[in-house]
């Protein structure tokens, strides 16, 4: 009865505090939308590489044709032709294009010549007469790649490897064709077999998921919605601490201290109420992820299939956030102290927890420290649940950590609060 009375009182205090309501609901919703929009481009940048590449085609032969077609078939690269090599270099240097592929005059013919010579020697060694010369030109045929000095290393690597792969495919195609050509020369006429390197082997790339056809890669929405939801839940300390300290300063807490047996209901009631507020925040933010984000041109939040696991994680995060807020509220004596320490500590915990940027892009030392952030425990669980369809068993260790954190902060809050009753 006393706990319910406190929950109802906290409800009335909150609904009559427009600033507190805005801080709890409106601002986090705005924050998650803004952050998802801002980080959408960088996330796409990482995972959906879009590059504009200049092709300086002085060769004007089959290699340049195959190169252009192969680059464009990746879907990530747009090829723009440029005849002037110096102008191409300047455009790349200025950052207008990420790279320039230069096929010098006679590249196709030189490569074909080398192939002819190589196959001629092989065929002759096999005892087959061939009219082709067997001396091999040792210097390799050059193909130049110029990169934007500001290009990301992984882009440079991907593009370089892509070009080498295309060249290797063209070479193997020509080698097979040349081999067939030389072996069927003279009296040994054989029908030629058309060779397509793509028919030899196919590399299937897919996500290791129960539903591999679903697009479940980490995107801006999948990262930002759970991340900023937890950030908002931990910011519950603002209304919690400010109301608590206000009650202390205004005297109503003194009256409660004068009422025997009211201390546990006061703490338990506040904890319960703000726990429900956190859960409400969670539901609202998830709803925004599912229904509002697609309207803004962002991905729809995909929750995975473990609803129980999601609820369990949300409850444990809400408990941890409320416990932390309560501890800040009882420990500090002025709103300035509580709110300054509280907000900075939540920002630090969230940064370490991977809210701002994913933990995997952090330095190793920070990745180690991040393991101690409750926000990291929650975010890791949500990522496992949303993207990997994790089982409840998988997320239990993080859940236990969050609940343990909650109990420690709750007990500490109660003890600190009780110790201040008598001084």
């Amino acid at each position, binding site marked *: 009865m006393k706990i319910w009375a406190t929950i109802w009182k906290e409800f009335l205090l909150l609904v009559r505090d427009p600033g507190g309501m805005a801080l709890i609901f409106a601002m986090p919703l705005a924050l998650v939308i803004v952050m998802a929009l801002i980080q959408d481009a960088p996330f796409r940048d990482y995972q959906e590489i879009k590059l504009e590449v200049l092709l300086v085609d002085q060769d004007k032969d089959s290699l340049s044709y195959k190169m252009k077609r192969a680059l464009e078939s990746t879907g990530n690269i747009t090829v723009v032709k440029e005849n002037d090599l110096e102008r191409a270099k300047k455009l790349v240097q200025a950052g207008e294009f990420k790279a320039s592929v230069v096929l010098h005059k006679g590249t196709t013919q030189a490569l074909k010549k080398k192939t002819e010579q190589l196959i001629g020697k092989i065929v002759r060694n096999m005892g087959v007469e061939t009219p082709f010369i067997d001396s091999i030109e040792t210097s390799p045929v050059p193909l130049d790649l110029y990169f934007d000095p500001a290009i990301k290393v992984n882009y440079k690597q991907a593009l370089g490897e892509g070009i080498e792969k295309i060249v290797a495919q063209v070479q193997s195609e020509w080698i097979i064709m040349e081999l067939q050509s030389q072996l069927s020369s003279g009296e040994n006429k054989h029908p030629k077999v058309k060779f397509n390197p793509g028919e030899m082997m196919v590399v299937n790339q897919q996500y290791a998921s129960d539903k591999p056809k679903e697009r479940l890669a980490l995107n801006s929405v999948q990262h930002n919605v759970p991340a900023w939801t937890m950030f908002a839940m931990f910011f519950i300390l603002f209304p919690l601490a400010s109301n608590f300290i206000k009650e202390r300063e*205004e*005297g109503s807490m003194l009256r409660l201290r004068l009422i025997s047996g009211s201390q546990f209901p006061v703490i338990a009631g506040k904890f319960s109420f703000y726990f429900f507020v956190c859960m409400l925040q969670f539901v609202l933010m998830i709803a925004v992820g599912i229904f509002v984000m697609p309207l803004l041109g962002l991905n729809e939040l995909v929750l995975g299939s473990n609803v129980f696991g999601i609820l369990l994680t949300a409850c444990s995060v809400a408990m941890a956030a409320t416990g932390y807020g309560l501890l800040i509220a009882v420990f500090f004596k002025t709103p300035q102290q509580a709110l300054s320490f509280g907000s900075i500590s939540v920002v630090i915990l969230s940064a370490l927890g991977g809210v701002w940027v994913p933990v995997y892009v952090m330095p190793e030392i920070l990745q180690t420290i991040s393991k101690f952030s409750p926000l990291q425990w929650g975010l890791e669980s949500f990522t496992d649940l949303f993207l990997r369809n994790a089982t409840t068993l998988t997320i239990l260790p993080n859940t236990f950590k969050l609940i343990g954190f909650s109990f420690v902060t709750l007990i500490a809050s109660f003890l600190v609060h009780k110790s201040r009753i008598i*001084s």
Partner: protein
Amino acid sequence: MSGAIVQINNVSKQYKGAQQPAVSHLTLEISKGSVFGLLGPNGAGKSTLVMLLCGLLKPDEGSIQVLDLKVGESSAAIREKIGVAPQEIALFPTLTAHENLFYFGRMYGLQTEVLKKRIDEYVNTFGLQDKMHKRVQTFSGGMKRRLNLIAALLHDPSLIILDEPTAGVDVQSRNMILEFLLTLKAKGVTILYSSHFLEEAERICTHLAIVDEGKLLVTGKPDILLAENPDCKNLEELFLKRTGKTMRD
């Protein structure tokens, strides 16, 4: 004094960092059914003594018994039986008067029917029936004081402790509060009345004590104290005689 409801024995309390004790070797008894005036200038130690009685402060030395229970060992049990109206307006400003009283009544563990009955009774007594659904932040100082007093009475306490209950109120509100205290006095309810309004004390107190700088200067029945000090025509003169005319911060 026989039938003491409060016994304060040689109690001292000094706050951390303070240069002198707020209460110093103070011994006092309050008998059952009395209206005991605790008088003193600002900073005399009255509020500290009230907090010591409620068990919210721990004395550095000495002992206190309230309702035959030792403060410190049985503070929770004592708080169940006493009603305290602190000097601060100990209410939630953004809640209505009814919401405040209902919440505090619930925290006292009162059942709904009993609580409703008591709230109705007291708000009628204090003339707040039309204001019950207004937020406390819109109340005048006098209305807040009356509500503050009602919140201390909801659980029907055996001892009522009032710390400056008429501070900052208008004449009408003050009169209403004093009239109510006189009805309680007539019913034999024990009241500890801390104030520096001497004419109020003269009007309602059966016993009083004047304290200053944490020390007990004088205690007894007002008429006897005045008789013992024939040079003082009233309590104010006795008060000034005992505490001096030096200004207090």
